[in-house]
């Protein structure tokens, strides 16, 4: 059985088929990229997996568990973290508290304990902070700990969002266009981090990306989508040579 599986996943908005009976599987420890022109349904698939939209039909399995009907907040608890295409950080909070929200699924303290700030809460806070510091070190974010997100540049926010996802110690991470808005150098850093996530942290990566250099550099496999349907699946070079993919991008 595969690690993560989507079966005949569909999402219809009225007559528009944003995702049309898409099936794919992700193996444990691989980096799978989803490519496709704008409006192909890539981000919609992510929103289906993280349960922001309920699917019109189809099922989603993670570690052999059917997660199609799990509430959205449970998905993180199962070990699936995500980033967003348009950066959804908590703008009026510091980077540290943003990252600590990433630890939310690991918090075990109860409300009354927190009101009194009992030693257990204090110990929990320090433990969370230690984990957050590991991620900060991993992504070179030391300079921004107490900075408010609203004052930080786009490229840094992008990395912080990745950091927040990593703080939840996910087994599977969904990256929605990790390189959008980043310059060449930052994209290069991003590609190293994505590969390190796989090799050092053992995280399985599912990624939506437009930058083919990044896709080629990090992906084990690629899925090409257009109009909500799978066009091709395979190694990066196979997919790029596939006649349907060429037609979708060049309009031939």
């Amino acid at each position, binding site marked *: 059985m595969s690690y993560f599986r989507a079966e005949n996943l569909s999402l219809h908005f009225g007559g528009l088929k944003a995702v049309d009976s898409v099936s794919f599987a992700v193996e444990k420890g691989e980096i799978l990229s989803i490519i496709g022109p704008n409006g192909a349904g890539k981000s919609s698939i992510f*929103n289906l997996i*993280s349960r*922001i939209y309920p699917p019109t039909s189809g099922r989603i399995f993670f570690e052999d568990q059917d997660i199609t009907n799990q*509430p*959205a*907040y*449970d*998905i*993180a*608890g199962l070990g699936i*973290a*995500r980033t*967003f295409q*348009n*950066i*959804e*950080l*908590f*703008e*009026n*909070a510091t980077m*540290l*508290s943003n990252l*600590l*929200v*990433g*630890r*939310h*699924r690991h*918090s075990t*303290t109860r*409300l009354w304990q*927190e*009101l*009194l*700030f009992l030693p257990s*809460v*204090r110990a*929990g*806070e*320090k433990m969370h*902070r*230690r984990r957050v510091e590991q991620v900060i070190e991993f992504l070179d974010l030391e300079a921004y700990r107490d900075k408010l997100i*609203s004052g930080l540049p*786009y490229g840094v926010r992008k990395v912080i969002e990745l950091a*927040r996802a990593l703080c*939840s110690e996910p087994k599977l991470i969904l990256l929605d266009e990790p390189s959008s808005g980043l310059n060449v150098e930052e994209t290069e850093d991003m590609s190293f981090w994505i590969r390190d996530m796989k090799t050092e942290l053992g995280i399985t990566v599912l990624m939506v990306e437009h930058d083919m250099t990044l896709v080629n550099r990090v992906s084990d496999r690629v899925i090409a989508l257009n109009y909500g349907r799978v066009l091709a699946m395979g190694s990066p070079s196979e997919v790029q040579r596939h006649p349907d993919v060429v037609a979708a991008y060049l309009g031939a």
Partner: protein
Amino acid sequence: MRFLFKTDYEDDIKLFPHSGYVVSYGILLAFLLIAPFVLSSYLVSQLVFVCIYATVGVGLMILTGFTGQASLGHAAFLAIGAYTAAYLQQFNVPFPVYFLAGGLLTGVVGALVGFPALRLTGIYLVIATISFAFIVEEVLARWESVTHGNEGMRVKTLSLFGQAVPQNGPTFYYLCLAVLILTIVGTLNLLRSPTGRAFVAIRDSETAARSMGVNVSLYKVKSFAISAAITGLAGVLFAHKLSFISPEMFTLQLSIEFIIVILIGGAFSLHGAVLGAIFLVMIDPFLTYLKDDLPGIIAGIAATFGADSITAGKIHGNVAAIASANGLKGAIYGVIIVLFVLFEPLGLYGRWLKIKLFFQLFPLYKRATFKRQKIYVKSERNR
């Protein structure tokens, strides 16, 4: 300027980041403790109101400032706390019991209000909470067997451990101060733990909060319940302070006053709640001053500029009519809110931070430091 050198994770957890805070809050506390012995009884009574309003402000700040859920129904929560106290007092229930019962009952009602609020945002939530406040007001007026309807209820003098605590005495002031301080400490504890961060997460991006594993519905209900419970506790003290309560005291205007407390104070800090409460409580004497003295002053000015006694008398009469007009208070509140939203959205506490920074950076402070800039607005399409 002070640079903090952090060597331990504890440095980011503790309530007072450095010794300067301990000194200044220590001085403030010392002043507050000796206040009943040095200030006039009128000022102490005003301080009691500041404590009560600030407690409500902290409660509302949790809901509006930190969780991002607007409420114009907090007068109703205050009323529930106050009426619980007045009702239970009839059966000789001791103060600690009905104090906590008031908080608990209001908290439960707050949670119940929170449930329908889950599906509402922004202005719709405001309308829902206003309607809730009207329902409570109406219930208080009609449920005569419990609330005595519009006749109102007399609240007996508070008695604590067999001692009478008159509402004008220093003990009652200390009680209110203790409730305020405990509320603030509890709230600060909450804010530095996972629950508080989840609240802030919901305020800034519900979508992201959800995908990080925050059960948004549960935390919204929690926030409503906590906010209501704190307001209910303040309501018990409010009832004792006024020693008489009736439904027309808990109107929409009172809810708006609470909004003013957090808006004027500064929408994202507990300092703001306290500063806003001070501001609001001080408005009343100012309005009384306007009513009593302003007509005379303006007529006097007119007279020095050569107006004859008949014209000056007319001016006096007109100004007095305006100053004592019905609803002037509401109008002034409205103007204050508009001016603050336009010119100082971060409220009094924001202004204080700017002044502080000016002296810390002197002479390098730049006016543009706090210039509001247009920033990238994220899409709301996942709502």
